[in-house]
């Protein structure tokens, strides 16, 4: 079975600084994989290379058998490779509904339609509504995205990506910055992601990683330190030394017993 | 041979003097856009006011030329301080459209005020006799005025270079242009710096308008007319790029003058065609529009 996303030896340099050093990763369909590492390890850069906003110096990105290494971001999105951002990129002055309408509109291919009223775009409207229902955002349907709570905004960020029916979903710290009381909703949403989607999740919170991921890759200074199951990674002496430190180990112990 | 010398001397005298006047007017905008990141389409207004004030003082109160120039420069610089506080302070960090709209409004207001006070026609302005005199070099006669502008322009250029390269004020401005937030966090009083730079830029523009009034005639639509040329200089030099703006301004002056001289029909296009070319080349050398 061809894996959905195969990344081989991806390299990226900014002048003298190597931000990605022969990074390889494989995501089969249905994967739930986490990418962890200290700050500045190059995790977000890696997502940028996968989504196409950054162009790699060398290496390949193969998506469902097709080499997309040189493809433009919007083409990759059309193929089903979608990412979210650590800092939400919403349509702040548009309503939640409109935030979902736009991606659904593009996916359905109706955005070239100039003569039909937008409100008759039934399929798209239904999809947007369904997405809001799924994420529990129906009661803020007509509120401007800028007026939502931070947690709700992160939900919208996730929702926009989901509207595009991705085959591979790259999540950049989806729960980051959300007050602990509100994290539940977004974590539940992540858990409810369709099983066929391959998901790569950048996270710092080990509890989330433990709960959600079946595989973990540790990135340090742009290169892969190790890859394995969450247990393997967390047992590893090297990882502990480089990344987890004493506090991390305690949390890990706590998570394991939880 | 004679023709070549005549042509060359024409280009140098007229093109360079024109370019230096453009430099004086544009440097303020280069600074403002680099430092405050405000698209100030009304910048030409300061040049216009400087020119009008100078001519007015000479016509109405018989000020000698030199005094009139200095007086108008100081007046405009002083005037710019409250204007900056009242109108421009809001534009820092505002959207480009807002900046364009506000400054267009200011440009209109200036044009309207000028028309109300001085009338819609070209305002008569005359050079003092010593400058209006013609000098005869054999292959070409020209006004002493042109030479005067070049001399003065170069002197100011040197003075400005000194200020920006050698004084701490200049260093502050360059630092803040380079990295505004960093500058602020090192304790530089940004507000004061902005006001001072704005006043300097406006004063220089007024100087350009005043010493240039025999080249760029004074009329209410002055800010509009020279807006495009000034913007051309700013964009070609690179926003905030103080060093290259002198060279660019002179080049623009020379190219524009030469173009109009050699091919009166199509010469005017030259500089704008050149701008488009530069914009395209810059853009095609750095792809990736719209993507973060």
């Amino acid at each position, binding site marked *: 079975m061809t894996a959905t996303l195969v990344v081989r030896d991806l390299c990226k340099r900014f002048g003298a600084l190597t931000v990605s050093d022969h990074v390889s990763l494989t995501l089969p369909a249905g994967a739930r994989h986490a990418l962890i590492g200290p700050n500045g390890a190059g995790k977000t850069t890696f997502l940028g290379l996968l989504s196409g906003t950054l162009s790699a110096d060398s290496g390949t990105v193969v998506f469902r058998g097709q080499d997309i290494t040189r493809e433009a971001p919007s083409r990759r999105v059309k193929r089903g490779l979608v*990412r979210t951002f650590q800092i939400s990129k919403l349509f702040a002055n548009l309503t939640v509904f409109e935030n979902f309408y736009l991606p659904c509109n593009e996916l359905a291919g109706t955005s070239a339609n100039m003569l039909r009223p937008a409100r008759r775009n039934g399929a798209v409207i239904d999809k947007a509504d369904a997405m809001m229902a799924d994420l529990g955002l129906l009661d803020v349907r007509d509120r401007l995205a800028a007026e939502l709570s931070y947690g709700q905004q992160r939900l919208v960020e996730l929702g926009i990506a989901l509207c595009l029916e991705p085959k591979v979903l790259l999540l950049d710290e989806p729960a980051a910055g959300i007050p602990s009381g509100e994290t539940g909703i977004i974590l539940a949403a992540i858990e409810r992601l369709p099983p066929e989607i391959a998901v790569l999740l950048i996270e710092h919170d080990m509890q989330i990683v433990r709960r959600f991921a079946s595989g973990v890759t540790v990135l340090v200074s742009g290169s892969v330190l190790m890859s394995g199951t969450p247990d393997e990674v967390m047992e590893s002496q090297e990882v502990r030394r480089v990344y987890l430190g004493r506090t991390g180990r305690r949390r890990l112990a706590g998570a394991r017993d939880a | 041979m004679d023709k070549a010398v005549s042509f060359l001397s024409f280009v140098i005298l007229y093109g360079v003097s024109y370019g230096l006047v453009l430099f004086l007017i544009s440097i303020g905008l280069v600074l403002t856009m680099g430092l405050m990141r405000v698209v100030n389409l009304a910048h030409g207004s300061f040049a216009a006011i400087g020119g009008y004030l100078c001519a007015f003082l000479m016509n109405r109160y018989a000020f000698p030329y030199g005094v009139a120039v200095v007086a108008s420069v100081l007046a405009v610089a002083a005037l710019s301080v409250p204007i900056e506080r009242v109108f421009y302070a809001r534009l820092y960090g505002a959207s480009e459209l807002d900046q364009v709209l506000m400054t267009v409004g200011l440009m209109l207001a200036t044009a309207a005020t000028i028309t109300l006070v001085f009338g819609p026609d070209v305002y008569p302005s005359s050079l003092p006799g010593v400058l209006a005199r013609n000098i005869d070099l054999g292959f070409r006669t020209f006004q002493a005025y042109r030479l005067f502008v070049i001399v003065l322009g170069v002197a100011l250029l040197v003075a400005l270079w000194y200020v920006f390269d050698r004084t701490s004020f200049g260093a502050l401005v360059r630092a803040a242009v380079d990295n505004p937030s960093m500058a602020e966090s090192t304790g530089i009083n940004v507000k004061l710096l902005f006001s001072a730079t704005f006043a300097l830029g406006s004063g220089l523009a007024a100087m350009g308008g005043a010493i240039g009034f025999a080249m760029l005639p004074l009329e209410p639509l002055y800010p509009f007319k020279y807006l495009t040329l000034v913007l051309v200089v700013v964009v070609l030099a690179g926003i905030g790029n103080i060093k290259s703006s002198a060279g660019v301004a002179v080049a623009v002056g020379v190219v524009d003058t030469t173009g109009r001289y050699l091919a009166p029909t199509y010469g005017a296009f030259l500089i704008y065609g050149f701008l488009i070319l530069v914009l395209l080349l810059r853009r095609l050398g750095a792809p990736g529009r719209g993507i973060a």
Partner: protein
Amino acid sequence: MTYRILRRGVHPAEAGYWLALLAIFLVFPTHLSLATTALIFALFALSYDLILGFAGIVSLGHAVFYGVGAYSAGLLALGGVREPISGALLAGLTAAALGACIAPLVLLFDGLALMMMTLAIGVIFYEAANKLTWLTGGDDGLHGIVIDPLFGVFRWSVYGYTSYLYVLGWLFVLFVLVRTIVGSPFGAALQGIRENTTRMYLVGAPVRLHLFRVYVMSAFVAGIAGALSAQTTQFVGLEVISLDQSIDAMVMLVLGGAGRLYGGLIGAPVYIVVRDWASAWNPYYWMFVISALLIAVVRFGRRGILGAADGLADAARRYIARGVP
């Protein structure tokens, strides 16, 4: 300020607007030439709204299309194509074709560079019109443009009855067209581009293609506005393609409210009326009033007259302009 994507129906105030325009015909028969100018400018401002208000393209050279439309219509008439409607359409299509050529260049850019590009192109066209006297009449302009009676029946009188209704007809038809486009899924995508261009790229939208389309359409409408100017005044002067004309479009639109369909349709008449009325006091006073209005609009949130009316309606809880598109 956003045109809500699922907007439905026609607001009663809209009917009022168009009826008022018809009423002007009956109530102010002596001011028809001024009113006609106002409507032509409204159409031009509407075209500018498409790119500025809805797609977020800040162009300083939109008069190029207005001017090309005007010169085309004038030249067509002088060349024997005197039927007004086809003349205007052909002029509009010429402007649209030009738009299709310019758009790929202009849309490479963003922000200040885009403004400069449009400015430079505008100046080049102005200088071209100035210099190509055999084509445009240069400084003197195109004179003696004669148009056949409308539908072969209605003559163009000095009082401007036919002119006014002719322009009003065009304005209405094109307004309905623009309204349809803006209310379509395409229109929604345009607003998305204006609000967050990067995100639109990242939801797979063909951003440049969308912008190209709206740019060409905007050029078409602007071209027709220019053509109407040529046809009703029987003259085309350099001012139609000048920087002033481009700035006028911006000012009129912003006055009324950019991003609102009726923005230009309100802003243009206000601008014209103020200009006319203030000129009576003092020929130069109007520029002052307009600049003050513009600065006030920017100062108070750039929502223009319609935005202010919205604010009043909300505050007073009365159904004045709320929901007017």
